[in-house]
């Protein structure tokens, strides 16, 4: 369960920073080091993305990352999570994927193994409220949070219902469309996120497109948590290619540090 994070961040008068990592890009060994680094650098929670061959809700960055990570399995990610727990990393981990790899693994088995491997929550991109019972019957008894998603197209009534079906936080998709680096938050963001927070019974994380400390700082002033994904995926990949592993970890660590500083209200 991850709600304790929000008690801590409320006390510290800041938003929580959630970092998305594409697991297995380019291999699980690098991912393990990357997760440790982003946690050390100030990420409060980490979304561990399990690659899927057909990432319908993702833009170019995560599509490319998923291709580079092809061959990485749910099992690989669970084992990595267990190793990180053994090594003392305590930040909440959110298993993040599309339904099919999880369904194929077996939802009941996955819930059991998630608990054993130190996974705190699941986020399943293509499972809306209407299909969530199939997951909740396995996650709830084990105390695994199911992170529901809200979107610009969701009515506030619907946001309330969505938030009631999940736990942990509500991931609010700030823009129409797919994941990917964007230069600014939508103009209606401040007003909308306030309404969404009022409607939601859960803390609200803002995600999709947030790619620099300025945007993160704006989001942090109005949301309970801020999610950064594509930018970090791109940065890790680019620097790894051009300057190697140590530089990639340093650059991402530095960037996550700047995002963490931007969480203060």
């Amino acid at each position: 369960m991850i709600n304790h994070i929000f008690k801590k961040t409320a006390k510290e008068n800041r938003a929580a920073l959630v970092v998305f990592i594409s697991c297995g890009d380019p291999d699980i060994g690098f991912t393990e080091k990357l997760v440790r680094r982003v946690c050390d650098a100030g990420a409060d929670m980490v979304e561990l993305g399990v690659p899927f061959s057909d990432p319908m809700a993702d833009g170019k960055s995560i599509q490319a990352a998923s291709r580079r990570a092809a061959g990485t399995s749910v099992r690989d990610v669970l084992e990595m999570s267990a190793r990180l727990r053994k090594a003392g990393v305590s930040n909440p981990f959110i298993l993040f994927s599309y339904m099919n790899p999880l369904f194929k693994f077996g939802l009941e088995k996955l819930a059991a193994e998630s608990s054993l491997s130190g996974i705190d929550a699941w986020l399943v991109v293509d499972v809306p409220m209407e299909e969530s019972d199939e997951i909740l019957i396995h996650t709830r008894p084990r105390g695994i949070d199911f992170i529901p998603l809200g979107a610009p197209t969701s009515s506030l009534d619907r946001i309330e219902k969505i938030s009631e079906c999940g736990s942990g936080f509500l991931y609010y998709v700030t823009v129409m469309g797919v994941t990917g680096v964007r230069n600014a938050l939508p103009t209606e963001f401040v007003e909308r996120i306030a309404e969404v927070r009022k409607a939601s019974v859960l803390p609200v994380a803002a995600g999709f497109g947030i790619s620099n400390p300025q945007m993160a700082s704006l989001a942090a002033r109005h949301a309970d948590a801020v999610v950064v994904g594509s930018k970090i995926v791109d940065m890790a990949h680019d620097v790894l290619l051009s300057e190697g592993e140590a530089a990639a970890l340093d650059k991402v660590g530095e960037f996550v540090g700047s995002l963490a500083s931007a969480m203060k209200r």
Partner: protein
Amino acid sequence: MIMKTQRTEKGRFGEYGGMYVAETLMTALLELEDAYTKAIADESFRAEYMQILRDYVGRPSALYHAKRLSEYCGGAQIWLKREDLNHTGAHKINNTVGQALIAKRMGKHRLIAETGAGMHGVATATVAALFGMSCDVFMGSEDIRRQSQNAARMKMLGANLVSVEIPGGGATLKDAMNEALRNWAATVDDTFYVIGTAAGPHPYPTMVKEFQSVIGREAKNQLAERTGKLPSQVVACVGGGSNAIGIFAPFIDDKSVALYGAEAAGEGIHTGRHCASLNAGSVGVLHGNKTYLLQDSEGQISNTHSVSAGLDYPGVGPEHAYLHDTGRAVYVPVDDAQAVEAFRALCKYEGIIPALESSHAIALAMQNARSLSKDEIILVSLSGRGDKDMDSVVEYLNRGEK
């Protein structure tokens, strides 16, 4: 433990179907479900739809007794439901007319579609022109190559053809559908997604079946008028399965009628280069619905192969998954070689050039006919015409000669 949400039973066929999409699309799907339900209950909507099918599409389509082909096979009488004679050359237009009329009622002015062989893309571009709507069609780069005539037709009809690329090339229908869904998520306010097959999230499988069931209703009446009989078998090709579910629909409750779907076995199921999801797949979730998929042990979707672009898809409509499980319909793999042989047989004996997709159904009907008596009837959905496939067939035959 109290579950606060209700799993939707609408749009479920046994365990299959459902609405597995990103939240961004949910409101649009629920609005579509509402608009569709109201439209279909509205007499004026049905009248307008049927009038367009009559005056513009050219329905009812002919039912043709293929005597020479039947004689050649030496068994049951093969009757062809001639969807190839529809305007635009396939069954796809039955569905695009219906969906475009719903788009109009919903006040959406832009249509998007995915397409494999291009027939659904052409049919969507056609209705966009008919109703004065803008249209973007997503098509895999591999399919644009092998169906270049259809690509040209869509452009001529005023559609914007978006070539979907994947690194290494070879993008097909699955990739086109991914990209269409991504585009829809960004444009859902003013855009209607015209799905071409009886798959995807609810309400599409139900809606597409409704609009395609005109095939089966007409054929059933025509056959009764001409022969006074029900067919022993109904045979159709199954990719996503829209023409199949359309011709099966009015026969599902007639227990004496056997239903057969021809799945594309490509180079043979044992080669792994095929798209027979019911025969060789397992249950999973893709493109909004739970159904049989070609996938690996980790739930990653497999690459597929078929000589026919329209069947080259790793999934199948959820109602077919249900009919398969219950045994009400039987799905038989038909490989590239059998399909091309049937393609040539129909040309030779009947002077009809069938689509390569439909050729899979012809092949299965020819095979089944041999084990039935001469007074039995096999009704076949000839879902499209084969002009678009001349290059593919020639390429296939040349490869065989080398």
